[in-house]
């Protein structure tokens, strides 16, 4: 049994991965997955409806899981279908998260009125929307950085309500009984109707009823054109026209002179009718026909949308997170019992998790057509990936489970950070002009981020050194030497990556801003990591610090790296303004505090460490 443990855990890990790759089970007769794969454009990118559904849910309520008031669970696509096509139901879904008690007071609600004590429905908020709007206007002139928590909550909820209302107007006219019938009537009458309106304007006799109907349709379409969140109508000339995507309302307005409604709009109206009337067969058939038509004009976009929808449902980083935790726990246990068997099991699990994370990163790179790091979210993924990569190498060399412990911990921590960063919305973002350079993203950004990863890893290895030394008897001389050498090796890589990455950043700045170095906060942050690694290396080479001192130094590297990674973004100044965030400031402080505590523990005289006590 004991001998089979590594194999058992290996199979368990593989089973977890395999399960995540299986398509999601569909409880309804509607082909929800096919709907989720439909391409639309949001934020400048062609993406599957599935991504829209998931990110909208995450933005509204920080979670992808949602249930109807009668507690039936909904998939994100089912939820979106109701939002788009059957708002009478969606308005009752409790998906607006409100955490600020004063904000609830505006709506005369209490936490008890909400799902999970914090989520509320459109219907619950609707009566006081005017008051929310007034509060939002009051908050608006205040600079985002100095808003009170209440003002931030107001602005957030106001934006979320806007998102919901805009989503509702994306494919069919919201609050409309039968959009398809209206469109068909409109199409039948449009030529005569336009003539009637023209005649009216020219002061000639005209068909009053028809002209009024046209004016009403025009008003509705233009409201839809203003409101809609999605660019859902693909250009008729295929995917080479990347800027031709339109909102349904805009496309309908364009149809006045020609009388030709874009087929995609009829498809959406048809989907709306069949979804509302609970006609899965017809619903699926409309999807199938539309898909066949898209295949001709948008083959590549469809391939990517399909892959992205699969990526969404597989959630590779979520599975990797579980595996990292498992690897960490098993590796820690291996220090107590069965070091060989459990150590190997942890190594295998860590390996599977890392391969999965690699696949996830590659999938993102392919979807985006970009190097791995393009925003803060992907930097978290990459920091973890590079650190765990090093851990696997260390574990392969040393086989003392230290690499697995550190890898499990760093892998989990970075994916957790990534999870919180992903709550802001779609993580596959378009790059603004200055960043639109795959060469520099691939060189400067990747090396600097690798430097973050290596510096963090050195810090975590040092924490292991300190904790095992102070609190256990397990840090014998061989282990201490090995750990110390691991830290040194990783710091060497960290110094290399952060130095080269920082200079490359300077060269990029020279190319795009006209100066190599400008003491910008983000540049300073990178420089601080370089200097810190240099201090470590020189202190070691000069014999100025011994094992314990070096470990303490390495732990402080964590504080510096966290400062460079997130802290400088919270200052709200500088040119690297594409990664701003301030809500995580307390977390940053807490992290720095925890590291200082580790340093304090590490500074206890060696004679009092359990491992070195006589």
């Amino acid at each position: 049994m004991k001998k089979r443990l590594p194999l058992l855990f290996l199979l368990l890990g593989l089973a977890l991965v395999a399960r995540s790759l299986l398509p999601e089970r569909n409880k309804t007769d509607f082909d929800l997955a096919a709907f989720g794969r439909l391409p639309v454009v949001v934020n400048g990118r062609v993406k599957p409806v599935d991504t829209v559904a998931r990110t909208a849910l995450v933005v509204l309520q920080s979670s992808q899981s949602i249930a109807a008031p009668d507690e039936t669970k909904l998939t994100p696509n089912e939820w979106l279908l109701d939002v788009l096509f059957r708002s009478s139901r969606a308005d009752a879904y409790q998906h607006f998260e409100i955490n600020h008690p004063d904000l609830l007071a505006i709506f005369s609600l209490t936490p008890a009125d909400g799902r999970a004590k914090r989520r509320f429905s459109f219907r619950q908020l609707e009566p006081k929307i005017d008051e929310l709007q007034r509060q939002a206007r009051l908050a608006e002139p205040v600079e985002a950085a100095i808003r009170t928590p209440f003002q931030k909550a107001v602005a957030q909820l106001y934006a979320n309500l806007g998102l919901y209302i805009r989503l509702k107007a994306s494919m069919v006219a919201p609050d409309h009984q039968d959009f398809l019938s209206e469109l068909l009537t409109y199409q039948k009458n449009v030529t005569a109707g336009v003539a009637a309106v023209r005649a009216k304007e020219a002061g000639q006799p005209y068909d009053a009823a028809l002209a009024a109907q046209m004016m009403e349709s025009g008003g509705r379409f233009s409201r839809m054109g203003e409101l809609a969140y999605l660019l859902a109508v693909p250009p008729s000339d295929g995917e080479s026209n990347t800027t031709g995507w339109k909102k349904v309302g805009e496309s309908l307005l364009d149809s006045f002179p020609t009388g030709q409604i874009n087929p995609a709009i009829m498809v959406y109206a048809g989907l709306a009718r069949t979804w509302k009337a609970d006609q899965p067969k017809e619903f699926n058939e409309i999807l199938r026909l539309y898909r066949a038509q898209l295949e001709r004009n948008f083959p590549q976009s469809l391939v990517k949308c399909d892959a992205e929808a699969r990526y969404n449902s597989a959630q590779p980083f979520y599975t990797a997170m579980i595996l990292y935790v498992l690897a960490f726990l098993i590796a820690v246990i291996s220090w107590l019992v069965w070091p060989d068997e459990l150590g190997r099991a942890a190594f295998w699990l860590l390996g599977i998790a890392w391969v999965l994370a690699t696949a996830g990163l590659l999938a993102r790179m392919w979807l985006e057509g970009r190097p791995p790091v393009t925003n803060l979210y992907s930097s978290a993924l990459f920091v973890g990936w590079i650190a765990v990569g090093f851990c696997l190498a260390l574990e392969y060399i040393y086989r003392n489970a230290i690499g697995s412990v550190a890898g499990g911990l760093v892998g989990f921590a970075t994916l957790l950070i990534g999870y919180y960063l992903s709550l802001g919305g779609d993580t596959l973002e378009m790059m603004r002009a200055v960043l639109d350079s795959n060469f520099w993203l691939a060189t400067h950004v990747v090396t600097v981020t690798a430097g973050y990863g290596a510096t963090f890893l050195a810090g975590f290895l040092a924490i292991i050194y300190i904790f095992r030394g102070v609190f256990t008897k397990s840090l014998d001389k061989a282990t201490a030497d090995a750990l110390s050498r691991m830290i040194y090796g990783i710091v060497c890589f960290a110094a290399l990556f952060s130095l080269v990455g920082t200079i490359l950043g300077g060269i990029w700045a020279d190319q795009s801003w006209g100066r190599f170095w400008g003491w910008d906060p983000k540049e300073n942050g990178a420089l601080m990591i370089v200097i810190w690694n240099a201090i470590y290396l020189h202190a070691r080479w000069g014999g100025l610090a011994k094992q314990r001192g070096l470990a303490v130094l390495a732990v402080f590297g964590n504080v510096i790296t966290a400062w460079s990674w997130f802290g400088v973004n919270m200052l709200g100044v500088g040119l690297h303004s594409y990664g701003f965030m301030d809500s995580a400031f307390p977390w940053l402080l807490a992290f720095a505090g925890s590291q200082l505590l580790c340093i304090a523990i590490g500074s206890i005289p060696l004679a009092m460490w359990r491992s070195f006590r006589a």
Partner: protein
Amino acid sequence: MNLAVRSVRDFFVSLKLTVVLLALSLILVFASTLAQVDLGIYAVQEEFYRSFIAIWHVGGIFIPLPGGYLVGGLLLINLLSAHVYRLKLEWRKAGIQLTHSGLIVLLLGELFTGLWQEDFQMTISEGDTKNYSESFRLYELAVIDTTDPKMDEVVAIPDAKLAKAALIQHPKLPFRVATKAYFPNTTLARRDAAALSPAAAAVPVATRGIGSSVAVTPLPLTYKMNEMNVPSAVVELISDEGSLGSWLVSPHLGAPQTLSHAGRTWRLELRIARAYKPFSLQLLKVTHDIYVGTDLPKNFSSRIKLTTPDGRDDREVLIYMNNPLRYGGYTFFQYQMDSSRGQTGLQVVRNPSWLLPYIACIMMTFGLLLQFGLSLRAFIAKRRTTAKPAVV
């Protein structure tokens, strides 16, 4: 070598000094980053890096720190003396030698950049041609002889000279220019004697030109990224026969003033300092792409026609983000754009030492790779001989 000299040498050679200096630079960088929130980047560069002692204001407390010149200079000395006295030239140390040499190149590059780099901007509207760029911060008093309708003779006096309030004599001018008052940042308003603030009342009133009806209010210097200091000066022109009167000059005035003396006519204006180029750029077209359905910029580009008076260069170039034009020792970067008005803003940089960081980067990368590669090889060789055979 006597004991004192030896101990001084040991001090400068020591690794301890290296570590202390590195730690001090870390604090300096950190402090300067925080200080940017209040001071802005330009003031921070002057205060923290182009200085020997920096004063860091935290709340109401002043913390003196060694400035960039001091720390950087000592590090350079420390590094150079370590190489002279401590680190021997040997293959084993080649990686460190190369890395440190790269660092020296980098530091020198920054020093030269600080000394030699000139920054200008060039704003061109579609269809317009320009053969000069303008400074970001510096001004000049332009005294332009417009008597000859075919050509203007320009004498430009830098604002720094005006600020020194010296009597300025130029061979091309039949009068001397004396500064009666100079204020580096000001606002102007219509002069209303009753409502003059004490600061504005203290400014001497110009006797000629529009200045006699204008009130000048001196302002404190601004360091904000999006604000400019706009100076004003009252200058007196003095010919051999005596004073011609005094003029208020300021970029705020908008239009130049004219004066006549000895049968010739001059235009007088305090304007943003210009640097003329031996070639000219004509803006053909600006393009501002956004991602569909968003206002996120995808690209800014300027199509430019580059010509030299001698006709040797006459071609079209495209300047866009991350793709500057390098020509004649200058680099032109896409800097700002107002596509609705068909206007582009180029940043113009002359930096003779721009290649040094590239060289430094290559040297340090290879140096570190060599150093760590050698360590890694030694480590692996050692493990081969001592470690037990691997079992997976």
